[in-house]
């Protein structure tokens, strides 16, 4: 997969930007805070519909503007493939003076607007390596859920739809819980509350599908990450990942566990069993949920637990060990995406080498293969001085490296 060109409107510090890229290594260099990462962010957004730095799309809109637009032209490495265009736009509803019925987010494929964002997933795949990767280890479960969700969405676009629907049902359910809490004097034990049951029944199938997909892919991530980690850490430590679901689906009998194992498309019986299990759990915790005004149990609370030598990595590992684990996770993402899509994703390396020692740099460079790479750094000669010695094959052909000088929101192609 290659990005041929990028067009930005009102994105961060770029009111209008047009760039054409080289098919191998693209180096964006310049001092910090000049707009290098914004270019990487736009490319990442084009793949995952989300920024790697913020969950608030409003922050991506240039100051004083009411929308942003990110357009790319891409070409698959597959034989005879033609270039395709992708575009994402986001409107700030508060500032937007255009039609109020207009959707906040629009996605286009070859200039045709897609009716659902989930259809956008999988059209363009990229993997980012950035200092923020360390948050995968350091932060709470939501960061790791997001990691799983974006990876699975790129492989199975219907998963993104499931996530969207689930969270919509969940938000509505939580509102009902708050309404019930406000209805003073009532006691809800295990009795049936029709307005709550309606949301539960709707939510359950989506929750079941999310759990199964996460279960399947977390196993693959775990296998992959352990392998990569062996390489990086010189096999002295064992990295383990385990999907933990607060729903307790894991507690279901052994038969059930084996049913979950084989693949990501379980039979309807398994789905039905998980659904019924969740429905009974939600019924059990109903009065608790009403007290708190939020739903306590469900895939929205799940985690991908990470341990190093059987200890919680978040609490008991050094910064260096955490960095290695984060890198192993990201390399797994790359490897699984490549396997599933049968194509090398575009690689975005945002200021990542400064954080890694030579050993880990090597591990990362080895995984790049023939893919198109975007590298940000402050020093133009970083690639030739620091990276070429580590991986001569990749950087030997100077024609395959294109340099972009980023300065105060202006970008120039240099020799």
């Amino acid at each position, binding site marked *: 997969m290659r990005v041929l060109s990028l067009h930005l409107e009102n994105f961060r510090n770029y009111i209008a930007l047009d760039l054409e890229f080289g098919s191998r290594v693209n180096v964006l260099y310049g001092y910090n805070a000049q707009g290098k990462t914004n270019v990487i962010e736009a490319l990442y957004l084009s793949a995952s519909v989300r920024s790697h730095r913020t969950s608030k799309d409003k922050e991506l809109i240039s100051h004083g503007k009411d929308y942003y637009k990110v357009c790319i032209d891409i070409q698959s490495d597959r034989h005879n493939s033609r270039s395709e265009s992708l575009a994402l736009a986001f409107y700030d509803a508060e500032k937007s*003076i*255009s*039609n*109020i*019925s*207009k959707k906040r987010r629009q996605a286009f494929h070859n200039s045709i607007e897609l*009716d*659902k964002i989930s259809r956008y997933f999988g059209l363009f795949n990229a993997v980012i390596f950035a200092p923020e990767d360390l948050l995968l280890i350091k932060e709470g479960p939501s960061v790791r859920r997001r990691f799983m969700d974006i990876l699975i969405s790129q492989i199975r676009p219907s998963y993104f*739809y499931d996530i969207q*629907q689930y969270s*919509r*049902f969940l*938000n*509505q359910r939580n*509102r*009902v819980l708050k*309404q019930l809490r406000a209805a003073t004097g009532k006691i809800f034990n295990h009795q049936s509350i*029709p*307005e709550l*049951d*309606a*949301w539960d*029944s*709707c939510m359950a199938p989506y929750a079941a599908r999310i759990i199964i997909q996460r279960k399947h892919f977390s196993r693959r991530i775990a296998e992959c990450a352990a392998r990569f980690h062996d390489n990086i850490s010189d096999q002295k430590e064992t990295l383990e990942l385990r999907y933990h679901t607060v729903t307790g689906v894991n507690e279901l009998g052994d038969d059930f566990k084996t049913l979950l194992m084989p693949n990501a498309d379980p039979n309807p019986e398994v789905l039905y069993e998980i659904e019924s299990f969740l429905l009974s759990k939600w019924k059990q915790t109903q009065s608790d949920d009403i007290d708190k005004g939020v739903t306590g149990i469900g895939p929205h609370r799940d985690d991908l637990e990470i341990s190093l030598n059987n200890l919680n990595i978040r609490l008991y590992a050094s910064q260096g060990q955490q960095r290695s684990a984060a890198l192993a996770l990201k390399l797994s993402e790359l490897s699984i995406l490549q396997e599933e899509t049968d194509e090398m994703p575009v690689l975005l390396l945002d200021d990542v080498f400064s954080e890694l020692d030579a050993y880990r740099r090597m591990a990362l460079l080895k995984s790049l293969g023939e893919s198109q790479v975007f590298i940000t750094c402050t020093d133009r000669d970083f690639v030739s001085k620091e990276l070429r010695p580590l991986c001569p094959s990749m950087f030997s052909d100077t024609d395959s490296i294109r340099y972009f000088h980023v300065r105060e929101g202006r970008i120039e192609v240099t020799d």
Partner: protein
Amino acid sequence: MRYSPSVTQLIAELAKLPGIGSKSAQRLAFHILSLEKSQVKDLTEAIVSAHHNTRLCQECQNYTDEDPCAICSDTRRDRSTICVVESPKDVSTIERTREYKGLYHVLHGVYSPLQNVGLDALKIKELFSRLQRHDDIREIILATNQTAEGEATAMYISRLVKPSGIKVTRIASGLPMGSDIEFADDITLSKALKARHDF
């Protein structure tokens, strides 16, 4: 840009309509100003008389001039089946397929706590009183949109109707997931109507 007070007011009124932003409101306003006097009279009279003459059919809750409405009083229609829809425009969409011969029930919305639309705001009580009044009703087809809120509304009705023994079906997923009936083409919609499943 500044307009005269009367033009400004016209734009402001038009902009209150759903789906009309300030740009569209300006365009509509200038279009109205460019019309002949008689055309403007036709337009305003149509608005006033539609608003004056229209009421809700006491059976199906659809907008009508006559109560009961043309569909509910048509003796050739199958009175044993009721198709439950979100809005009056869904009735006209389904009627266009000419596949469906039963009656309708219009909810005038969907259950959405986040938008402060409670179950009481929908014509659900009217549906149940209808089921009690007419013992010849055998099947309820739930044809709310396949959005999260449409699904939950259908689920709610289904769970309450089922104990009565009346058959409850959901319009089949011939429609793309998450879609509005309004945008379904006629063939997809008639397929979805034929292939409805027990719910």
